């Protein structure tokens, strides 16, 4: 296990470094010099050249990369071209919105999807089992922003129960206010996420329900409930966990649309602004942090799966055939 951990961590580090190179190269393919964003329209060539010098975009690319990489290693995400503010704290502030948003939506989605997916499989011949499958079919077809719009219209504009968007200027200083601002976005993401999760949980449950080992356990006298508890839960969780990892990672970044619907100052909207303004350090910073998150989530998901499923571990020495 220790050996595996070490190898897996090394793999994580190498992937992160590779991802940095890819990120850097990809970003330099964006058209337009960032210096244009700094200077007023119709600035003189001298002004532009000065701007380029000040942000270092006149240097050769490898040098720029080494500079950026060095910064990253010392925990510095660089300085925004546009606002001249350091990117690190900005990203941190945005994470204060995005991380609670994502995690709450994730937990809610799992709480909904696991029992619903199980029921959709176990009770698939009843009307409510079929209804659950149908609702999840509908759920994966609904664009998340449209669902957001509808929820805003119903619960914010019509009923007036919750704010229609925005986030308190002073962040979490007033937790109740911040919480209220996140309720609708969380529900929006959770609904869409659980729709697709239900399908995975349902098919994992179906696999277990049709499995021979469940039949063996029951054939030797286990009750259905006990056999599901002892054998079903673990076996169904293996495929679901890898999906959960991917869903969590993609929600962390994919929240950009929901953030736009609810005008939330999250990581996604920071990236969107960065892209629109060709603000390399901001784009790089956001993508670096996201990549790190994606890799770490993948690492954890792998680890959990490995603990649950012995077939993913190395073979038993000697006895293996």
């Amino acid at each position, binding site marked *: 296990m220790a050996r595996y951990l070490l190898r897996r961590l090394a793999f994580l580090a190498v992937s992160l470094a590779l991802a940095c190179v890819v990120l850097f190269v990809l970003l330099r393919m964006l058209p337009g010099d960032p210096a244009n964003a700094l200077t007023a329209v119709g600035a003189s060539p001298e002004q532009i050249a000065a701007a380029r010098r000040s942000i270092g975009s006149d240097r050769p690319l490898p040098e720029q990369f080494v500079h950026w990489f060095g910064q990253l290693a010392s925990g510095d995400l660089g300085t925004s071209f546009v606002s001249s503010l350091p990117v690190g704290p900005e990203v941190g502030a945005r994470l204060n919105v995005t991380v609670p948003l994502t995690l709450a939506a994730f937990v809610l989605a799992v709480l909904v999807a696991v029992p619903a997916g199980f029921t959709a499989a176990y009770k698939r011949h009843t009307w409510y089992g079929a209804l659950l499958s149908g609702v999840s079919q509908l759920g994966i077809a609904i664009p998340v922003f449209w669902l957001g719009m509808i929820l805003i219209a119903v619960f914010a504009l019509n009923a007036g129960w919750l704010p229609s968007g925005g986030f308190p200027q002073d962040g979490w200083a007033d937790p109740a206010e911040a919480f209220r601002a996140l309720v609708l976005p969380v529900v929006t993401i959770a609904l869409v996420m659980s729709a697709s999760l239900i399908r995975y949980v349902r098919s994992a449950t*179906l696999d277990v329900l049709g499995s021979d080992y469940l039949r063996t356990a029951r054939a030797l006298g286990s009750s259905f409930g006990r056999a599901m508890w002892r054998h079903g839960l673990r076996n169904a969780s293996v495929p679901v966990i890898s999906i959960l990892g991917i869903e969590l990672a993609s929600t962390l*970044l994919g929240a950009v649309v929901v953030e736009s619907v609810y005008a939330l100052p999250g990581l996604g909207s920071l990236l969107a602004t960065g892209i629109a303004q060709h603000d390399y350090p901001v784009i790089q910073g956001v993508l670096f942090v996201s990549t790190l998150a994606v890799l770490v989530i993948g690492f954890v998901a792998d680890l959990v799966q490995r603990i649950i499923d012995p077939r993913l571990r190395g073979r038993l020495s000697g006895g293996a055939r």
Partner: protein
Amino acid sequence: MTGTDLLTPTKGRRSRRSATLVVGCVLAGVIALLAVVSFFWLPYDAEDTSGGRLAGPGDGHLLGTDKLGRDLFTQVMTGSRIAVEAGAGSVFIAAVLGVTLGVLAAFAQGWLDDTLSAFLDILIAFPTLLLAMLIVAARSATLGSAILAIGLAQSAVVARLVRILVKRVLAQDYITAARTSGTSWPRSVLFHVLPNIWPTLVVNLALQFGLAVLAEAGLSYLGLGAPPPNASWGRMLQEAQATFTTAPAGALAPGILLVLLVIGVNLIADGLRDTLDPATRRRRT
């Protein structure tokens, strides 16, 4: 597929399966028809603002007008064209690129194999929309950029699937047999591997079609899709968001059509899976 599904081979199921396919085809077909008709005939010109702002449905305008006075039904029709184009274009790119990469990756061995699969895994973890945003930003906000971007992002998903499928087929005996009997590997891919994986592949591509339509709508909603005056459903929804409560038609119609199209395509995928996939057809007692 699951053991239970294998064990319930009944006429009832079969007819329910084809019902899925029929309903899917009808839903997607209606939208496709709107898209085709939009090439030849539209109720109003895209720039015609004679209807007055935010008119309700009726009075010569089936769905009313938007905040500039343009006919909503006309826009919905052009929107269906853009949606179908986005889906078909992206899936085409994803299919060509994904299958090629996937087959090549499946033949890789050792560290190259590990690296490729790890790379695909990381690529997949990034949402399609985000990759697409980057690519759209690098080019310009046009429908072509959006299609290219979504297609590229999806080809990673397709490539990973193809890699796994091909590996599975290669592990089976008859490929080894074909190889030892002197068949070259391009031939074995063409005659043994692809015929074995295409049912699963087609089903997945159908699902990708729906996802591409959703992704294009998302990009357009963010202002990164087809530029005005092309009325993409995503952009229509974005424009109608502010007037949702006063003029709901504009905020509902494109969304409903979008959902119907995606459900239609997903149902087709489900129907195809049940009719094409030999694994679900096999019987056992």
